[in-house]
């Protein structure tokens, strides 16, 4: 595993650089946004004197590079800094937001993979026929409905009319796991789009794979249909879907703003929204580190799988 290991090592090193780039970029972007924490803090009372005082109190009068350098130095000691608006440590913000986000992401992915892949394979098997059209239309239809509309629909039917699930997670605080019913509707909304994109990509690859001679060969040799499809044909269809999955997980981990808002789940997306609105740069930067790392790791993982699924690449001339 020599070559592979050095490749991974290099990618991780690059990943560190990338994360640094993400942090820099995010810092630059947030700095470039009009207004700063002081302005945001002042809100509809933008008394210039007051803004100046706040700016001084927050240390925003110091040049940007100095603040960044300070923050980076802190980070090297594992300190994410303190929030400008609340004065509390950023690490706490991240930790609080991460729990719900991780939970939602995990549950969603656990359902997404079997459903998305299963539907994709099923559609590919029946390409051009009724089942395929039904699956494609249904997933595409759900995909094209905006999240908020789907969320509203689910809430009004399953929560308000039938009373099966609570309409929001208000009041459940951090104990979401103890109340699985709370998660049902948000997870359904979260699933709606990725299931479609995953299923469509799997379907596309699977049509080719099912038509390939090696699949016919496995079938001919009496391997049960499901095993032929999932163990022999599917690996050839999976590379793009894996990338898509990585993007989905990334999206889930970086906070799903609409769903969090709709169901009052205080995840990372909400933290980011508020931090950007408050121009609370240390918090935004802290999030950038988390998001940057998540993206790097997920991309690396997806690339490894892609590489594994196309073993000849890298050898070919």
């Amino acid at each position, binding site marked *: 595993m020599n070559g592979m290991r050095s490749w991974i090592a290099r990618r991780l090193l690059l990943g560190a650089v990338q994360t640094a780039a993400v942090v820099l970029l995010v810092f630059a972007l947030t700095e470039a946004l009009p207004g700063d924490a002081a302005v945001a803090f002042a809100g509809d009372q933008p008394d210039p004197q007051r803004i100046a*005082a706040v700016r001084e109190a927050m240390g925003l009068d110091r040049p940007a590079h100095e603040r960044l350098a300070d923050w980076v130095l802190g980070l090297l000691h594992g300190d994410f800094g303190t929030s400008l608006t609340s004065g509390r440590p950023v690490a706490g*913000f991240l930790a*609080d937001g991460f729990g719900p986000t991780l939970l939602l992401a995990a549950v969603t992915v656990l359902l997404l993979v079997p459903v998305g892949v299963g539907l994709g394979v099923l559609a590919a098997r029946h390409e051009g026929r009724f089942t395929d059209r039904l699956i494609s239309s249904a997933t595409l239809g759900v995909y094209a409905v905006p999240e908020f509309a789907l969320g509203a629909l689910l809430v009004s039917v399953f929560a308000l009319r039938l009373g099966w699930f609570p309409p929001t997670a208000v009041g459940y605080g951090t104990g979401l796991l103890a109340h699985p019913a709370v998660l049902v509707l948000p997870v359904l909304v979260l699933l709606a789009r990725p299931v479609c994109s995953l299923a469509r990509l799997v379907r596309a690859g699977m049509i080719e794979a099912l038509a390939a001679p090696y699949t016919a060969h496995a079938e001919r040799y009496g391997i049960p249909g499901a095993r032929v499809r999932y163990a022999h044909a599917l690996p050839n269809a999976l590379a793009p879907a894996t990338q898509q999955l990585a993007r989905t997980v990334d999206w889930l981990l970086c906070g799903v703003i609409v769903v969090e808002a709709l169901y009052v789940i205080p995840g990372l997306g909400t933290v980011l929204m*508020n931090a950007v609105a408050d121009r609370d740069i240390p918090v935004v930067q802290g999030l950038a580190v988390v998001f940057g790392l998540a993206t790097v790791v997920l991309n690396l993982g997806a690339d490894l799988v892609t590489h594994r699924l196309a073993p000849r690449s890298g050898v070919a001339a």
Partner: protein
Amino acid sequence: SGSPATGTASGKGDGTPRRGGRLRAAFAGGGASETLDPHLGNLFADAARSKALFDKLADYGADLAAVPRLAEKWEPNAGLDRWTVTLRQAEFHDGKPVTAADVLYSYRRIADPEKAYRARASLEPVDLKASRATGERTVEFVLKRPTAEFPNVIAAFGTYIVQDGATAFDRDPVGSGPFRFVSFTPGRSTVLRRNDTHWDGAPHLDELEFVVANEESARINALLGGQIEYAHELNPATGRAHEKAGGIEIVRLRNSAMQAFAMKTDRPPFDDPRVREAFFLIADRQELVDGALSGAGEQGNDLFGKGYEYYADELPQRTQDIGRARSLLKQAGAQDLKVTLDTSSVAAGFTEAAGIFRDQAARAGVTVDVRMGSKDSYWKDILDSGTLCCYRSGAMPIESHISQRLLTDSTTNATKWQDKTFDTLYQQAQSTKDRTARAALYGRMQRQLYTEGGFLVWGFGDWILGTARNLRGVAREAPANTLDWARFDKVWLA
């Protein structure tokens, strides 16, 4: 004791209050950076929480006149520049009495130039160095100039009284308010419990929980699903949808939000009063109210404070007159006028109003270019730059509106209205002890604004609340930010 000016138990047939229960109230919040520091609060959620935990010396009644709270009474001297405030007998949650020292500490904390608390501007007239405690429960406030409207100062937003020496509030805030602290998770929930020894009588509720739900649909869904009993700030459309349905109660707090377009009077084209008047005449206010506020509000008459004390309601309602607007523009040599209207999604109705006004202006030959700005820095951005922008204001006394926005040295003068005679009139009013005489002066000032001011006030939006059917005693006549708004010590669960 109590709040004399406002009828608290407003809803007729609410029955006799019942003790007990936990009320859950959902507000849009500030997320994970929320704090319980009553002086730091900016948002409605902060204000509601502070109101439950702390008390102010005074607060605003439904007509925005000051009503005594911790202050039992206030007395000015003849020159109106020294006010003696007597505190009522009240105690903090830890049992210590509320004293003059606590008041002075709180005010000095707010006024700390380093900290820049929001209420600092309101306390500006007070010379806190010179002010002193004249007794255990009497404070003598020395003012920098005569201030007839001093009660407005001590009723101002964010002027809560904390304990002498208190600096940290997130762990265990100690106030004198109707509820005591139980727990606080920033951005999620705050749990409070009844303060049995509150000077205004113990609340009916056992417990009060504030939950944060930023999305309006989440608040209404939670309310409909029985997860909360009080949803703050609903859309007009939501209000209409549920008003008749009966599942929940919709409460409209009238005159809560002034909606306006602010013209910068110091620069072209609005430095010409004829152009300003033309714009007054371009606006079809009913169309704006219907379109941008979804009908949830009333027409404005280019003046702030409809229904408030001193409001000049004798002035005729202005209506659209495109013909006259055109001729005024022509006189001003601005036939093919092009202006940029700044707007942003910072407040409900802004972008809608901008679009509607653009179409109305087009009928008068004015090209309005709508420019969307960042919502986070909007108020700062429109303060000095641009010529025309969407503007709104929450409830405050008309005097505060004038002093903060319309004097030459006002800090947030978005219309750049700088007029010597107007300033003089204001000072005159502040040194006039007689209320009627003062009212006459305010009337003159408002007339001037009506004819040539910079605020095109086209409407006053309702503040819409949703409450569970078993929640009783919710005030229906209190504009947002006044005493009875978001007041939970007088409500009960039937």
